[in-house]
């Protein structure tokens, strides 16, 4: 029988029983959560991937249950933002069962959390995850003894490869049958201040049922580290593999646009045109040459972006990111950041939003703000489309690939230099202690990569469709009204002309200026705007030809630079606001990026003019 402690209390039974997953970072909570609920929470071999809770409902025997995946935390009494998410959750919501997931190969220290849960007096099932690694390391655990000492059911599983999961899930259902109450916690941090789980308590439990291997084994990861973290070749290997990745994205992704283009052309003739034939001719022409043409042009990026996410996912799952943090820490220190900041910047290459949320693992407020300030400069996958599109026009072939790589470098250098400047200014002066885990290298499974890429791509195509409609409609309106107006007399023309004193020195013409303004919403919308303004009525192929005729390399690259550095999208701005809860900081961040974008594009455009004219 479980007795609630002074920090937990019995509540009336939840109608929908709630099962909460907790554990240290990187123990496989999200992987197991996905197995249990068949959902698709993010998984990576990087401690601190989940920073917010994820929820999924599941029916069993005609009854609905709610499962919640929480961020990994080192212990229940901590006070970083991600740790507070867990404490607040347990203090604000009634729950029925805790599922504690630990990396069993590190049970000698991870036993802390089950002990803390036990001390809180909460019903719990313990999952000893990573059974495969336990075996490889030679850790021996007597689950029966452990279960008796802890007074909770214990299961050995491998969430990634599936072994033991069926039994473990059954164990969760069985346990739920025996629980008549719901629970809630209060003031957890305070409770542990006077009821600390001591070293002794942990050793006590481990003495009985656990045998750890020798301290000087050389694992496969150690051997790989001796190359990848080598003092001489470690950094060069890192940079060369990055270059290889970005070039591969270009060379694998670009040719794949053609088959997609053939498909969308075919679809247009076979399905879209016939199904729109009931509409008035002018209107169906608008749909086909406007939103559909733009959508088709951008759909061509699907293979490219998918390939990008395949590489990203594999990289995240491999464990190399923590190593990158280790290698780059010394450099990042010069900017007042640390190795984690570098990895967050890499995450930002996928999407800025989760990267900004990932800063929650940084304790020092000022260092966290500094990270948030520079993440929006990371070249995200949405901007990748803009660049692939424009570079494809202004720099076809291999040069384009290198230009893309150059943009990634610029993205990082600008972020780095800004951090350095702000750090020197003293405003963000801070020192967050730096320690991270270096998990063993892990092979990404096909299933994990496929699932992740699939979820990224469905979001991608959905956003594309929505943004395309919004973007083309706004642009169409701006370029055709007021009624009867043409060229520079339309709203678009007038807005663009109004900003010309500011944008002409960057070589950005009125129409492209309007696309940048519209692009404030999202980069997909920006492309939609360009497509509509230059391509309407001419089909997707003609679009590139038209644009190629009106912009030079100098103008196009300046436009790319501006797009790279100015506000990425509304969602990012909203996230910055949400995370900092400061309107002032948000406005500051937006202002900084606008100014930087202008200065860099101006610098490029003018100096190019000086050198080559």
């Amino acid at each position, binding site marked *: 029988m479980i007795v609630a402690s002074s920090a937990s209390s019995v509540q009336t039974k939840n109608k929908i029983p709630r099962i909460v997953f907790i554990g*240290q970072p990187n123990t496989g909570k999200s992987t197991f959560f996905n197995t249990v609920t068949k959902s698709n929470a993010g998984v990576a071999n990087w401690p601190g991937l989940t920073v917010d809770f994820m929820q999924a409902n599941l029916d069993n025997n005609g009854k609905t249950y709610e499962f919640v995946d929480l961020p990994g935390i*080192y*212990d229940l*009494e*901590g*006070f*970083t933002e991600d740790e507070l998410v867990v404490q607040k959750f347990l203090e604000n919501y009634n729950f029925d069962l805790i599922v504690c997931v630990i990396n069993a*190969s*590190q049970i*000698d*220290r991870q036993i*802390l959390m089950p002990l803390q849960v036990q001390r809180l007096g909460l019903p719990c099932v313990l999952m000893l995850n990573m059974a495969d690694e336990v075996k490889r*390391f030679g*850790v021996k655990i007597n689950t029966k003894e452990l279960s008796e000492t802890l007074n909770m059911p214990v299961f050995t599983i491998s969430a990634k490869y599936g072994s033991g999961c069926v039994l473990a899930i059954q164990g969760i259902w069985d346990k739920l049958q025996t629980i008549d109450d719901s629970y809630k916690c209060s003031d957890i941090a305070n409770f542990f201040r006077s009821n600390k789980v001591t*070293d002794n308590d942990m*050793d006590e439990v481990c003495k009985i049922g656990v045998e*750890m*291997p*020798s*301290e*000087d*084994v050389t694992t496969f*990861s*150690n051997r790989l*580290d*001796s190359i990848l*973290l080598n*003092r*001489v070749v*470690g*950094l060069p290997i890192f940079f060369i593999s990055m270059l290889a990745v970005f070039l591969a994205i270009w060379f694998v992704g670009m040719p794949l646009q053609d088959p997609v283009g053939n498909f969308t052309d075919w679809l247009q003739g076979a399905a879209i045109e016939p199904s729109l034939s009931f509409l008035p001719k002018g209107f169906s022409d608008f749909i086909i040459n406007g939103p559909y043409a733009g959508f088709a042009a951008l759909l061509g990026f699907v293979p490219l972006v998918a390939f990008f996410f395949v590489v990203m996912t594999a990289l995240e799952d491999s464990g190399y990111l*923590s190593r990158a*943090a*280790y*290698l780059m*820490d*010394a450099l990042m220190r010069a900017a007042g950041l*640390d*190795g984690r900041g570098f990895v967050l910047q890499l995450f930002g290459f996928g999407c800025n939003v989760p990267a900004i949320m990932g800063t929650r693992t940084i*304790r*020092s407020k000022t260092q966290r703000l500094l990270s948030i300030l520079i993440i929006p400069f990371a070249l995200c996958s949405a901007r990748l489309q803009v660049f692939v599109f424009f570079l494809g026009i202004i720099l076809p072939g291999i040069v384009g690939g290198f230009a893309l790589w150059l943009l990634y470098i610029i993205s990082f250098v600008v972020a780095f230099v800004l951090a350095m400047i702000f750090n020197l200014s003293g405003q963000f002066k801070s020192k*967050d*202690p*730096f*320690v*991270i*885990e*270096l*998990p*063993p290298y892990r092979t990404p499974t096909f299933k994990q990569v496929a699932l992740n890429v699939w979820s990224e791509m469905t979001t991608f195509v959905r956003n594309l469709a929505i943004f395309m409609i919004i973007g083309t409609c706004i642009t169409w309106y701006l370029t055709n009204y007021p009624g009867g107006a043409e060229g520079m007399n339309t709203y678009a023309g007038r807005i663009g002309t109004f900003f010309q004193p500011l944008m002409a020195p960057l070589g950005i013409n009125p129409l492209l200026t309007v696309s940048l303004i519209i692009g404030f919403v999202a980069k997909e919308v920006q492309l939609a705007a360009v497509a509509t303004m230059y391509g309407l009525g001419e089909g997707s192929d003609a679009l590139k030809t038209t644009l190629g005729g009106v912009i030079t390399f100098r103008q196009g690259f300046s436009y790319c630079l501006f797009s790279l550095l100015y506000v990425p999208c509304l969602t990012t701005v909203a996230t910055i606001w949400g995370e900092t809860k400061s309107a002032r900081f948000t406005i500051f961040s937006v202002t900084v990026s606008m100014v930087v974008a202008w200065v860099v594009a101006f610098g490029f455009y003018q100096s190019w003019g000086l050198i080559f004219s």
Partner: protein
Amino acid sequence: MTTQLTLSDLDVSDGTAMVVDVVSDGSQIGDGFRDRLIAMGLRKGKTVKVLRKAPAGDPYQVRVGSTTEIAIRKTEAKLVLISKS
């Protein structure tokens, strides 16, 4: 009086050493950080071993116990008091 050895004094060639204590610099962040180090396995009686140092000599790659590996900066390693065996 002998000076207390810390993890930051440990070299790759020294092999395994024993954690004696983990201290805090007294600030709130420091106290929390001490708990974090302990949760990562740096507690009294555990072994530590410096596997390598980064190209700039900092941070260290350290094995804690037998199955945990961490990267820790020199300044932070100073908080971990050790004794060489």
